[in-house]
């Protein structure tokens, strides 16, 4: 469990003390089933699932600002939605003030909804264009039957508009979203979110669609609202810079899992996971004095329906080790990248060693038997691979792939490559800083000697 160390919270409004646990997620999973083909449905074979959220534990304390940070496809939005019951969890539990909300149906969730609100990314899309601001902002009051008469309704809407800085409110009540600028719309969306007196706001990229000069204003408004209304925030974003300023604690997500989780100051001062390091290095720095040349991780976030074995980040990780989950797919990527660099004729010559490179694309192959191309023997393939390994051992930066290869030998007319058995990295706590990290390189020494 995460405990808050005595550090200065980063944001100005974050100074409110952080209290009792408000939301606790345990072993949370959200898997979206894929619809298979007709044949698959007949044969009863499952088409697989996208593991949008894959085993997450976290604790959100009252008054805290938790940042969920990751690239698209990392599951951060799904996690944010699931925490307030907007998406059904397929396993695990979420307790809100001691009540397990994963067990509740729509009827049971209704009364909680006004306490758990959401702000969506695109202010242009989250307001009904045919609803004026009076109706849109006050909508939650009607849904939850919170007002007795129209007079009270009007007063509450006016108050909410004033709180978000849409003043004088009379000017905005009759307006339609089309009359408002992006920043004003996001203010109206915030007014709607706070009008039912929520306790927790999940803000999904609330500023990423706004102009640079408006972003700071909306962040400031969110800090003010938090201070005035005693709110707790989950801030979902891909923007590390704003998360650094805004959040007390931060969870870095990759392919449905948290890879690093801890107090913001610690995570930024001393990133532990190679993915966090990569994200930090990738932020373009407007100050040329500070800009540094950098090595970027290769490739892109993998398909969540076919996640890599072991640590999901290993195919892009510059420092991966043997146990990170190397498999046949990684060999294919390695070969394709090599052939991209070569002249077309040389690449074609090397490619002819293999009967079918695409066969390496199958998932979860810890041992792969490679058929040699026409006119080649398994020994030719092995010699070629050994040559690659030799070459890689002298090159800088070191290609981590070869660390995962245990043996290469010929068998039944095929070249067999065997990889080290994959091991899932678990989140483990670094006592000194209160940061949890899921990386084989950061595991306590005792457990790594086990394999």
């Amino acid at each position, binding site marked *: 469990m995460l405990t808050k160390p005595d550090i200065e919270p980063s944001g100005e409004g974050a100074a409110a003390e952080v209290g009792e646990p408000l939301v606790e997620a345990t072993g949370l999973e959200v898997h979206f089933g894929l619809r298979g083909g007709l044949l698959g449905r007949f044969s009863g074979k499952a088409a697989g699932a996208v593991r949008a959220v894959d085993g997450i534990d976290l604790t959100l304390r009252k008054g805290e600002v938790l940042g969920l940070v990751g690239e698209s496809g990392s599951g951060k939005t799904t996690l944010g939605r699931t925490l307030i019951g907007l998406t059904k969890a397929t396993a695990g539990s979420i307790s809100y003030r001691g009540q397990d909300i994963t067990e509740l149906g729509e009827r049971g969730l209704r009364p909680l909804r006004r306490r758990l609100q959401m702000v969506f990314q695109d202010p242009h899309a989250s307001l009904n264009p045919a609803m004026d601001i009076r109706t849109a902002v006050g909508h939650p009051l009607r849904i939850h039957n919170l007002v007795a008469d129209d007079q009270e309704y009007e007063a509450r809407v006016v108050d909410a508009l004033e709180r978000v800085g849409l003043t004088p409110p009379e000017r905005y009540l009759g307006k339609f979203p089309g009359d408002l600028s992006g920043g004003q719309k996001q*203010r109206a969306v915030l007014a709607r979110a706070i009008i039912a007196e929520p306790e927790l706001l999940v803000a999904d990229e609330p500023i990423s669609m706004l102009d*640079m*000069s408006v*972003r700071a204003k909306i962040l400031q408004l969110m800090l003010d609202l938090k201070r005035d209304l005693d709110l707790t925030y989950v801030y979902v974003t891909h923007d590390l810079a704003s998360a650094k300023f805004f959040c007390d604690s931060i969870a870095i997500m990759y392919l449905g899992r948290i890879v690093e989780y801890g107090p913001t100051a610690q995570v930024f001062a001393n990133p532990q996971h190679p993915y966090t390091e990569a994200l*930090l290095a990738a*932020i373009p720095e407007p100050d040329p004095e500070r800009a540094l040349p950098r090595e*970027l991780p290769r490739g892109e976030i993998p398909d969540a329906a076919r996640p890599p074995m072991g640590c999901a980040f290993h195919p892009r990780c510059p420092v991966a080790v043997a146990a990170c989950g190397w498999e046949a797919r990684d060999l294919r990527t390695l070969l394709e*990248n090599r052939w991209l660099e070569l002249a077309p004729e040389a690449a074609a010559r090397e490619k002819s060693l293999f009967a079918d490179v695409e066969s390496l694309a199958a998932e979860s192959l810890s041992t792969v038997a490679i058929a040699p191309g026409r006119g080649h023997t398994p020994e030719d393939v092995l010699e070629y691979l050994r040559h690659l390994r030799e070459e890689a051992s002298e090159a800088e930066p070191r290609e981590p792939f070869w660390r995962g290869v245990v043996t290469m030998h010929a068998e039944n007319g095929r070249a067999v490559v065997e990889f080290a058995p994959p091991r899932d990295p678990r989140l483990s706590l670094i006592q000194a800083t209160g940061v949890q990290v899921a990386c084989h390189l950061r595991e306590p020494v005792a457990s790594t000697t086990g394999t």
Partner: protein
Amino acid sequence: MTEPVLSVRDLRVWYGTDRGPVRAVDGVTFDVRPGETLGLVGESGCGKSTLGRGVLGLTPAAAAVDGEVVLRSPGGAGRNLVGLPAKEIQRLRGPELGLIFQEPMTRLNPLMRISQHFEEALRAHEKGLSKQEIRTRALDALRGMGIPESRYRSYPHEFSGGMRQRIMIALALVLRPAFIVADEPTTALDVLVEAQIIKILADLRKNFDTSLVLITHNLGIVAEACDRVAVMYAGHIVEQGDAREVFANPQHPYTRELLRSTISLSTTGLHFIPGSPPDLVEPPQGCRFHPRCPVAMRGCATVEPPEVVLPTGVVSACWQQAIEVEPSLVDELGPDGREPLAAVKEISVADEA
């Protein structure tokens, strides 16, 4: 210094509306030299995309374009692209002028294979290429962007966003244009992929002699990938010069305020520019930034500031610098023109962007 490949002089692009013309680009002057990357930054609605389109002659038919866009590449031969017959300028697109769009997800035809995109582009612009030549050229361009040959016959949906953007860049490069406009090429992409694309664009100027105008609202990208930068505000370029110089010592108040309000890793406090960019149908008199400017003087509200070249080579359109460089200009501001503009009027959210 080498001769610029593209010279833009006093370019204006106005759109007609019921309320009168929208002056999206209003008298813009800049040069792009061979192999140089010019970053064009500004907030939404400042006219940066319109300027990019205007240079390529891609403005909608309803827009009025005036001024000079001189292309000095071999095919352009020093002609002014403004007013060139549509047929002529179409001939220049591809081999001389290229465009990389925003949102790669929507710019490729989902029903066409990648190979067909290349075939179409090469057939349209370079007639008489054999099928084999087309294939070789396309694969060369794709290889440069890190797309393996095995994906040549795939459909767009089989690629991720970052790969699609690389395909878009390859499609522009395959025609070997002398000059490319890249309009927000990384906006829809993830941080790491964005950084990869920026690296590709930065390498581009090293490996090819292509000149690039990179339109973006992300100041960090300009700092990393551009040689020079032009900052746009309300249809004007308010400051332009060497990217490092402009970012290290921003001169125009708008550039300074924009840099200050950008949230970066070193942000410790929030800062923002009050108010919002002006309505381009009725832009403010004098300097267009004066209603939001923290250092505005009385004269700024009445007389448009001249562009002056500062000792560092940076060009700025601000009275503060103008009277410093050329004290004689003070007279133009009128009597008590140097008095501070009575406290920037209280700007409420009503005027916010």
